[in-house]
């Protein structure tokens, strides 16, 4: 018991340190970890989306604020949703994103990632981490920008923009017209139906 407490105390400063990681350093660390795994993992390279989904769950998901993502995607209808509905929207939207990106990860090939210098003041609570990704064999880099917010649990990503296209706001109009026609439960239902579609193999279900 005593030893456990001592360990805990010893670890506390480490935890505090982890929270203080700068947003650009955090993005770089996550990306390095994931790409290193991808380069080694023959199963994912061969198209195992289930394994790719597990990798995303373990390494990427903890650093996202899915509640905020769902709220941005749902737009003004978010306020008229009950807390229960908001919870379901968040979880279905998260599943959709995780499934989508597990099918993208299996297409991962060697890429060169250049991070641009972070333009932020120390007191900023919201920053954009910008990077350029160059696929081998292609000459034109694609920009990937991470919109991040400071929380009590460290920096969290709430939007990713690929070549200027937001992974979150791109859903807005679809979601809005779904809600207009079938209500919030209708949107939850069609998200759930989309998430039940086969994905080669089932992936990313939590």
């Amino acid at each position: 018991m005593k030893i456990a407490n001592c360990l805990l105390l010893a670890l506390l400063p480490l935890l505090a340190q982890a929270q203080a990681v700068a947003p650009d350093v955090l993005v770089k660390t996550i990306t390095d970890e994931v790409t290193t795994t991808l380069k080694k993992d023959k199963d994912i390279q061969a198209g195992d989306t289930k394994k790719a989904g597990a990798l995303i769950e373990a390494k990427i998901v903890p650093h996202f604020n899915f509640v905020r993502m769902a709220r941005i995607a749902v737009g003004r209808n978010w306020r008229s949703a009950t807390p229960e509905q908001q919870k379901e929207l968040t979880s279905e939207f998260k599943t959709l994103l995780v499934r989508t990106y597990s099918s993208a990860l299996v297409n991962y090939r060697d890429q060169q990632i250049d991070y641009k210098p972070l333009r932020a003041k120390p007191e900023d609570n919201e920053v954009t981490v910008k990077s350029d990704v160059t696929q081998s064999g292609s000459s034109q880099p694609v920009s990937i920008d991470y919109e991040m917010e400071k929380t009590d649990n460290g920096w969290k990503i709430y939007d990713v923009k690929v070549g200027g296209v937001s992974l979150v706001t791109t859903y807005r109009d679809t979601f809005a017209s779904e809600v207009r026609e079938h209500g919030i439960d209708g949107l939850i239902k069609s998200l759930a139906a989309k998430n039940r579609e086969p994905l080669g193999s089932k992936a990313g279900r939590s």
Partner: protein
Amino acid sequence: MESRSRGGIKRLSAALLLAGSLAGCAASGGNPADPLEKVNRAVFAFNDGADKVVFTPVARGYRAVLPGFFRTGVSNFFSNLEDVWVSVNDLLQGKFQQGLEDFTRVIFNSTFGIAGLFDFASGAGLPKHTEDFGQTLGSWGFESGPYVVIPFIGPSTVRDGFGLLFDYKADLVYWATDSVAVRNSLYATRAISNRANLLDASSLLEQAALDRYSFVRDAWLQRRRNLVYDGNPPRERDESDDEPTK
């Protein structure tokens, strides 16, 4: 949408031009940028069908049969031809340094890169840029106007559609040969090469979208806006995003 505070008269004439096409079209869907949604959806469905039946299978075949270095060579070759027009657009937009760089790309890639088959310049620290006349119009202050899906070509806007007419006339492939047959086979090769480059992206789209039409539209509009502002578009206020979450 893409107003840069320049050229008031130009913007006015653009507005007048677009007002005609806007008038009388009741917004059927949710996006005010897409008053022609009904027609657009029909054309989108047609393009999608053509893509599934013709272009995707051909592109898949192309990718399956030809080795990667060959496909990269083809892609680079057309990209090099395009860079000439890219540098002209740089200059038209007042981006002189980028124009010089893009023109240097053409020189390097046409010589060291063996007629553009290798992208020598990217390795030498001169990355490729995407510029076209639609973006040039945007940088001059022309609004994008309504979203339009063009048969066989795909997503565009009124402004970018006008831009395409110039892009088409300025296309080096258009001027490369008098032989219609040769020109058409060059067009076809380029189209197949471009489609093959997008195969992964389109399977991702299949997985990502609930309604592919509106997903493509919104992604495309964001992409164009981003290009007009060269990667730094002004932040759009999120109406729903003004309360903190935990």
